[in-house]
């Protein structure tokens, strides 16, 4: 009993337990595996679904890093908003009907086009070397009795309060709502169809003279995405 009491008391400053490392390793494997799947899978729709897995596992990492509010926002904003938006786009863009065999299974697309990705692998090598050669202190963590969500709320409005130190973010908070409005208005403007049923065609090779709306028989998916 004495041993357990000691363990519980020491928990905030203790080094990682085996269970923590096990959970981290499992979810890191999920994150890395689904992220690799996102960029390697042939079918875009499968890539989007794998992105959902990756985003959810990142939310798990946030919970393990004592960022519960950010984890909830990750699920709400990313999985509930961004992923749905991207799924809409996939369905709107690939109207032509994908080839049946491409939808059968999420096959990996390995081939010579991956050579260009060597730059990314080299970047990872350099960054990983830099990380492994630098010494980080043990994580300080947050006090067990502090309410992290409340402290984030205070920090967003430059208010004193909460138990955890942070900078004030009132200016950034005000700026980002202008950014959000501008982005959403711009997105509506871009995706909107003109009154006469024509679409914006200024970028067409023919100067946009034949802009009578997309041809329903246009085979958007006839070409593979690679």
């Amino acid at each position: 009993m004495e041993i357990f009491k000691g363990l519980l008391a020491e928990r905030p400053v203790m080094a990682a337990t085996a269970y923590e490392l096990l959970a981290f390793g499992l979810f890191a494997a999920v994150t890395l595996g689904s992220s690799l799947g996102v960029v390697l899978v042939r079918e875009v729709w499968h890539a989007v679904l794998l992105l959902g897995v990756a985003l959810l596992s990142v939310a798990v990492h946030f919970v393990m890093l004592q960022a519960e509010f950010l984890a909830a926002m990750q699920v709400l904003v990313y999985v509930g908003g961004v992923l749905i938006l991207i799924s809409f786009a996939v369905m709107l863009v690939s109207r032509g009907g994908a080839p049946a065999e491409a939808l059968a299974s999420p096959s990996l697309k390995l081939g010579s086009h991956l050579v260009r990705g060597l730059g990314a692998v080299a970047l990872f090598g350099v960054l990983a070397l830099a990380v492994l050669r630098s010494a980080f202190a043990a994580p300080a963590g947050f006090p067990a009795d502090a309410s992290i969500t409340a402290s984030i709320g205070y920090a967003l409005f430059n208010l004193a309060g909460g138990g955890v130190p942070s900078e004030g973010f009132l200016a950034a908070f005000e700026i980002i709502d202008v950014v959000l409005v501008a982005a959403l208005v711009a997105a509506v403007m871009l995706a909107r169809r003109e009154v006469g049923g024509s679409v914006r065609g200024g970028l067409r090779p023919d100067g946009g003279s034949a802009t009578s709306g997309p041809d329903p028989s246009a085979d958007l998916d006839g070409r593979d995405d690679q």
Partner: protein
Amino acid sequence: MIPTSYYVLLATAVFCIGVFGVLTRRNALMFLVSVELMLNGANINLVAFSQLHGNLTGQTFGLFTLALAAAEVAVGLGIIMVLARNFEDVDVTEAVTMRW
């Protein structure tokens, strides 16, 4: 607690997978998805360093990253819709009419 360097390594890997996707794919939607991966890698770093220093600045900034990612996706999808209408394709190597 898990050492911060593990999380930084994980974030580096997720970011570089996103860079890999941008470099190797040609579908504009895959670009958008890869950029989401990169933003998530950056967010893991912000939250991990927030815990390392016991300071909430990183977590609060991560919230702003989330909001910016949502805005970026909205604009990116508008651009992709225009691309699909104008070129009947979302292949980024097809849209070359503004090249001189």
